[in-house]
């Protein structure tokens, strides 16, 4: 706890105080706080009856900043056998509060606006424990129940500290365990920061113009912008056509202006599905998912995809055009 290092950003440290309260390691302490609150409410009638003994707000604030107050509080939950850790945290807290008071009263007050409520309650509680130990026992009982609520509140409090500035929970010599979610988000932040091109090419989805389908007569479909799409995918038209025919189980021919005439009725959506399959199978690189690839005929009649992005090379299954021809024949055989 190096005070001099933290001094420049008091608000952060203030926030971190709340972190100190609420990180996993200090759950007990947090529980204790909440429990006290709850017990104050639960045993409200007793609290009311003791109303004169509960101190005014200003007093509570004073007590909260007063380190001597802490030990008094400790005594109440000590029965739970958790006092050791609590003591430690408490000491930390009191030290910090002293720092805060000595340094900046103004922002301290502002910060305490959020905090003093619990603190006051705590104070109330401590007073009460001095007076009757019954409330303390109730508190101990309710600890478990209130624990859940407290946990729900935790994440909000934990989001303190600026990662880039290295404050709050990200302080260099911070010894608190940082939660997994925070670490994960930090990792991805850093990753995207350090390699901006990485993120752009990785997340950018590959786009092709939608296929234009027209009906020719009743039984044929014209696929209008095949050359366009092929150019975009950097694949030969023959390859794409043969894949289309194999998948759709039909045949067809190319009309003028690069249009493809497919036998059978197909909707744009259906063609799109097939094209999507084609892209997954023959265009995108399986390693880095980029579409910046090239299809080459390698040795012994195998097709290989070379990725320009990551340099990987993989073989792809040949389109079984022979089989689709077989299917076509069978269909012809059946229909006459």
């Amino acid at each position, binding site marked *: 706890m190096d005070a001099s290092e933290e001094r420049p950003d008091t608000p952060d440290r203030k926030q971190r105080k709340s972190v100190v309260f609420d990180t996993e390691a200090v759950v007990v302490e947090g529980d204790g706080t909440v429990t006290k609150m709850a017990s104050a409410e639960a045993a409200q009638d007793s609290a009311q009856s003791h109303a004169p003994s509960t101190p005014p707000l200003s007093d509570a604030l004073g007590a909260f900043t007063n380190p001597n107050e802490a030990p008094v509080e400790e005594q109440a939950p000590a029965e739970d056998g958790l006092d050791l850790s609590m003591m430690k945290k408490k000491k930390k807290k009191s030290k910090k509060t002293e720092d805060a008071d000595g340094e900046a009263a103004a922002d301290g007050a502002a910060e305490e606006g959020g905090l003093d409520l619990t603190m006051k309650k705590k104070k109330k509680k401590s007073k009460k424990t001095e007076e009757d130990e019954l409330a303390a026992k109730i508190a101990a009982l309710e600890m478990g129940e209130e624990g859940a609520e407290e946990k729900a509140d935790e994440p909000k409090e934990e989001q303190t500290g600026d990662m880039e500035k290295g404050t709050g929970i990200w302080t260099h010599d911070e010894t608190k365990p940082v939660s997994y979610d925070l670490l994960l988000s930090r990792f991805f932040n850093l990753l995207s920061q350090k390699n901006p091109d990485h993120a752009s090419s990785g997340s950018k989805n590959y786009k092709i113009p939608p296929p234009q389908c027209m009906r020719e007569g009743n039984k044929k479909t014209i696929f209008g912008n095949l050359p366009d799409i092929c150019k975009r995918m950097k694949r030969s038209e023959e390859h794409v056509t043969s894949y289309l025919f194999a998948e759709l*189980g039909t045949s067809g021919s190319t009309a003028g202006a690069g249009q493809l005439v497919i036998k059978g*009725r197909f909707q744009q959506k259906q063609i799109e599905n*097939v094209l999507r399959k084609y892209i997954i199978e023959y265009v995108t690189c399986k390693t880095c998912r980029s579409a910046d690839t090239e299809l080459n005929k390698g040795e012994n009649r*195998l097709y290989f995809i070379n990725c320009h992005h990551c340099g990987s090379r993989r*073989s792809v299954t*040949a389109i079984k055009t*022979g*089989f689709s021809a077989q299917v076509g024949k069978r269909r012809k055989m*059946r*229909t006459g």
Partner: protein
Amino acid sequence: MSIENLKTYDPFADAEADVDAVQLGGKKEDYVHIRIQQRNGRKTLTTVQGLPPKFDRKKILSVIRKKFACNGTVVADENMGEVIQLQGDQRKSMQEFLVGKQGLELDPKIIKIHGF
């Protein structure tokens, strides 16, 4: 004497198997292909090709016909072996049948659905 460390899982086993399958090309009939073909009008045919030889196609067909409420035949093709042919678009139900507990319990990975 064996060194435990050397007996690790081979991360490339799958990849190599894959490459093998690719290199063997059409010779290795380990995929079950489910295809669809358009007939006249809105009518379609579903073909199931490459079923493992341990299954009796006729029996499968008789079950399927009842189950999917469609007719079908077993077509013997000289290249593709026996192919089950069903009336209508039965790709989805066929896939479920091939994978499911009630059906053949095949590995979903070896089933390829073609068509739109």
